[in-house]
């Protein structure tokens, strides 16, 4: 598997990261090198081996359904560049 410059440009756009022409060129090379390393894994026979989802043997822990968080609107909006009346205030986004 490998990626071309157009794919790199598309991934960058989807991730909302600005990558100029020159950087796209460089990234294509870097990413293909990484993909090449990962490709080596396919040399192993993994038939019948369960995918490993965690390095520790455990299942998903579950929480009881109790309300024990929230009610601190000031903390929630503290880092917002702008807020008003308890809302985050952002540049107008309307469909």
């Amino acid at each position, binding site marked *: 598997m490998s990626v071309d410059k157009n794919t790199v440009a*598309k991934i960058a*756009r*989807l991730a*909302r990261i600005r990558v100029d022409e020159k950087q796209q060129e460089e990234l294509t090379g870097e990413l293909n090198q990484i993909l090449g390393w990962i490709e080596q894994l396919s040399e192993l026979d993994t038939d019948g081996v369960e995918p490993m*989802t*965690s390095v520790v043997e*455990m*299942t*998903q*822990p*579950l*929480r*009881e*359904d*109790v*309300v*024990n*968080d*929230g*009610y601190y*609107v000031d*903390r*929630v*909006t503290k*880092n917002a560049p*702008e807020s*008003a*009346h*308890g*809302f*985050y*205030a*952002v*540049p*107008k*986004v*309307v*469909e």
Partner: protein
Amino acid sequence: MSYRIKGNTGEWEVVIGLEVHAQVISKSKLFSGAATKFGADPNHHVSLVDAAMPGMLPVLNKEVVEQGVRTGLGLRAQINMKSVFERKNYFYADLPQGYQISQFLEPIVGEGTITLDLEGGDVREVGVERMHLEQDAGKSVHDQHPTQSYIDLNRSGVALMEIVSKPDLRSPEEAGAYLRKLRSILRYLGTCDGNMDEGSMRADVNVSVRKPGDELGTRTETKNVNSIRYVQQTIEHESKRQVKILEEGGEIVQETRLFDASNGTTRSMRSKEEAHDYRYFPDPDLLPLVLDPAWVEEIKATIPELPDEKKERFINDFGLSAYDAGILVADREKAMFYEEVAEGRDPKLAANWVMGDFFGALNKSGLSLDASPVSAKQLGGLIGLIKDNTISGRIAKEVFEVMWETSKDADTIVEEKGLKQITDTGPIEAAIDEIMAANPEQVDAFRGGNEKLIGWFVGQTMKATGGKANPGMVNQLLKKKLAG
């Protein structure tokens, strides 16, 4: 009769699939301990997890998983003992994480079935493709500031069930029946309140058209439609629009559309074109969800009798028609009310009273069932009085009106107003004798062959006894006396 769109080149069939987002009833959110209750001040029901602060980790809510399993069982669906939460990546102002935690390749619930109750008591099975759990997004408010949108994250992270139907629906009516039935099942199960006004249930509507028998056409998806009527309008408008394009030689573009409630039409959401590349991948913060079979069995034991089973029982045990049974079971509270009224009474008579006078009075007064001035026990009492001949059906209507006004028991009202039915032959015979003596020409006419006059005599007798005479006895005695 199949629903068809008539075009210039013949008839077109409409193929519909619905993705319903139903808010799970739980106290706290899917992955955080913030409250889910509707109507709080902006950003009050928000934890640092919901606001996606760096380093915050999601922890799965046990109750939501249980509700998901319960819903799957209620939809007679496959429960997947292992399911996986994935990240669906996109950017929007009310999605602070930059992704929604959802399920994609391995949802918690697989294929199931919903039985539609159609007009005239007909039924039809519709397939459910899957159901998965996911986070809701926040809410954007666009009309409070000229250049800014306000973001409220109270809804962010609330658990949703996305229930996806197979493309089995063929008309706006069927889509409506599907949504009503799904809502009824969720309410019986107690897993979603089904309140479309508050956004607890909303639908994405997939529509395509084809000539009957052809392959499936290209579909469009109209997002976030929040009432059954709007879903039906979406289907009507969208199918006509597609037929027009195809007949003019055009092609349908697979796209996301928006419903405009102000004129019942749909329009393209151009900005979403690229957003379809969601780059799903398993959320590294969450392990696969593995269900213990014993737990699923425990949940199964808590499933109440659902509308389909209840309907079947009402038909078989109570002798109700499929239509009546369908109406009575649609709403769980109403079904429970009916059963309480029918307890130890004539079930058909009880059904007629509940669906007729009682629902009628309820609708007229605009009251909800739990605010009814007449309890199920009281209505049952009234029906008991009719059945044991204490009062006639006609007097019962009068008593019911007084019950509605005063909330008194039926027998108290009958006692106070002296409405007890006359079942003693003496007074009825006396009344008949008097009427016959006063109207000899009518008696002669009857005896001369005008048998229709019996109705007039019944009327006179009822009038003379203040409506309290037992109608059956009046008929019987009249026939005997008039025969000479």
